[in-house]
């Protein structure tokens, strides 16, 4: 198992390096520079000096080399904009983003999976139809529009929840953004679960279980759930990626102090070290989650061995 983990970790290195390179190259050709967003009317000499200070006067490959060298020591550089180390900036933002991502995923799982099960156990029934129509609808909404509607409804009309912000970090602030973000993975999970359960219900071993004289509830509990979990996990793992992407929109909408909003701000202001750092962290997070899920596979599905 340990060997497996180490091997998987080693395998992520090329991906991470490629991400670094990709983002670096991408942003070395981007028009607009940090200098122009910093001041309205600085004189060109000053700007030049600033570029020098930020190392922007060097050729791209030199900068890349320096960047990778620093990266190896865990240094993501200093933000052009705030002049703070990018690691500090990200560290401050990481927890809210994690909260948001995991809360959305929890919402998606807690609602989507049971919904999918219920739908699959009564295929063709009203429950099935309604929940699947809801699921598809959930997938078809523009995130920020949905967020605004939720905000309008639950904060303004009903007054149940605060409409924005991180507040003191309390749960009530988390609910609206998490739900907004969680709707589409929820919908996807409901559908995946339904499809997985439906498929497993036709599997031979389910017929075996029935031939043992088992009630349908027991069949589901003893034999279907664990098998469905494998498929559900796969969807979850991939959804984490989409979630990180969508978080950009949701964080911006709800003034959520996460990496997503840091990323957008940094992109728009050409704060290249911050952009690179944020994307790198997002990628590392995704890779870590998927590593975790791979480990979980091994726990759930004995056919996958990590000898």
């Amino acid at each position: 198992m340990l060997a497996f983990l180490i091997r998987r970790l080693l395998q992520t290195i090329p991906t991470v390096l490629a991400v670094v390179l990709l983002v670096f190259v991408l942003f070395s050709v981007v028009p607009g520079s940090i200098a122009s967003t910093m001041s309205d009317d600085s004189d060109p000499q000053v700007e030049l000096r600033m570029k020098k200070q930020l190392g922007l006067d060097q050729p791209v490959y030199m900068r890349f080399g320096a960047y990778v060298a620093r990266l190896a020591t865990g240094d993501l550089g200093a933000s052009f904009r705030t002049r703070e180390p990018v690691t500090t900036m990200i560290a401050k933002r990481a927890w809210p983003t994690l909260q948001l991502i995991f809360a959305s995923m929890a919402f998606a799982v807690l609602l989507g999976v049971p919904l999918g099960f219920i739908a699959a156990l009564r295929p063709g029934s009203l429950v099935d139809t309604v929940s699947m129509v809801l699921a598809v609808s959930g997938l078809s909404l523009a995130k920020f529009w949905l967020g605004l509607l939720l905000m309008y409804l639950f904060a303004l009309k009903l007054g149940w929840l605060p409409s924005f912000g991180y507040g003191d970090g309390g749960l009530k602030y988390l609910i609206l953004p998490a739900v907004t973000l969680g709707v589409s993975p929820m919908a996807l999970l409901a559908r995946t679960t339904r499809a997985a359960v439906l498929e497993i219900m036709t599997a031979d071993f389910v017929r075996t279980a029935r031939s043992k004289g088992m009630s349908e509830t027991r069949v589901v509990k003893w034999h279907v759930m664990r098998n469905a979990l494998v498929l559900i996990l796969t969807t979850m793992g991939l959804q984490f990626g989409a979630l990180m992407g969508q978080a950009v929109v949701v964080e911006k909408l709800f003034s959520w102090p996460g990496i997503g909003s840091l990323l957008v701000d940094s992109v728009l202001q050409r704060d290249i070290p911050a952009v690179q750092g944020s994307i790198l962290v997002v990628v590392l997070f995704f890779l870590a989650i998927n590593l975790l899920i791979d480990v979980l596979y091994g726990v759930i599905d004995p056919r996958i061995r990590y000898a």
Partner: protein
Amino acid sequence: MTGVPLVEVEDLRIDLDDGSRRVAAAEGISFRIDRGETFGLVGESGCGKSITALALIGLLRPPLSIGGGVIRFDGKEIQHLSAAGQRELRGNRIAMIFQEPMTALNPVSPVGRQIAEMFVLHKGKSWREANQLAVESLASVRVPAPERRVNDYPHQLSGGMRQRVMIAIALACGPDLLIADEPTTALDVTVQAEIIELMRNLCAERGTAILMISHDLGLVANVCRRVAVMYAGRIVEERGSADIFRAPSHPYTQGLVASLPRLGSRAALGRTRLKEIAGVVPAITGFPDGCRFNPRCAQATDICRTVAPHTDVLEAGGFVRCYHHA
């Protein structure tokens, strides 16, 4: 042995709802199995063997359903039993082994647990006791080192081992009837021999009757005392196993026996051209009128093409469904 047969099936009809209409996937199925008897069901792929077995054990699921007829088990009609009543029989008194030992076992559950479930379900045992009994069951199907094997997952076992596990599950509660639906089709001949012998011996020990389903007429004839041949949803002939091979009565059975080269026949008779059965098996939606074998039958006459034949009881025992039987 009492006079009541263990299983009595009379004029069973199984409907298939293909969305717009119902067609009979099998009809007029009648047979009887005595206690401890071995009974074989052979026939072409798709002729309705498996669904007949599923009807017996109450596992038909939509779009298939019982369309008529009676199934008596131990003298009691069971075709309209409640779900709970059926579960009472299923596994406990009627057990079943399926064709694919790989897919018939839950891949993510240890085999020991899958056996133990039987004792929990039907014998009211605790999981601990059940697990202990599972080890004994595995030992009884001659799996080496059963204490270790109970913790294995299906993929860690070979095909033959898996099928032994299936047998252990099926025989766990000492059923009166074991339905074996092509238990060895996926296995090699040497392994097949192992499994068949194991099944035969265990059932003989416990007085369990076997309903054995296979494509392989040779295998069934070897294993079973009586054999029924199905063709396109109907039983066309039912005989003692030696008779049916030596002197097949229905033209289809005759064709089957003659069409396949038997080991040793070339050595004995030289290479002769095999006898062919012309044409193809009809599709379930396009069964011909009259005798369903008529389009492929050399002896078919007008009556064969219009009116389905009744069963003729043969003097030598058994019956056949043909106007021209030998």
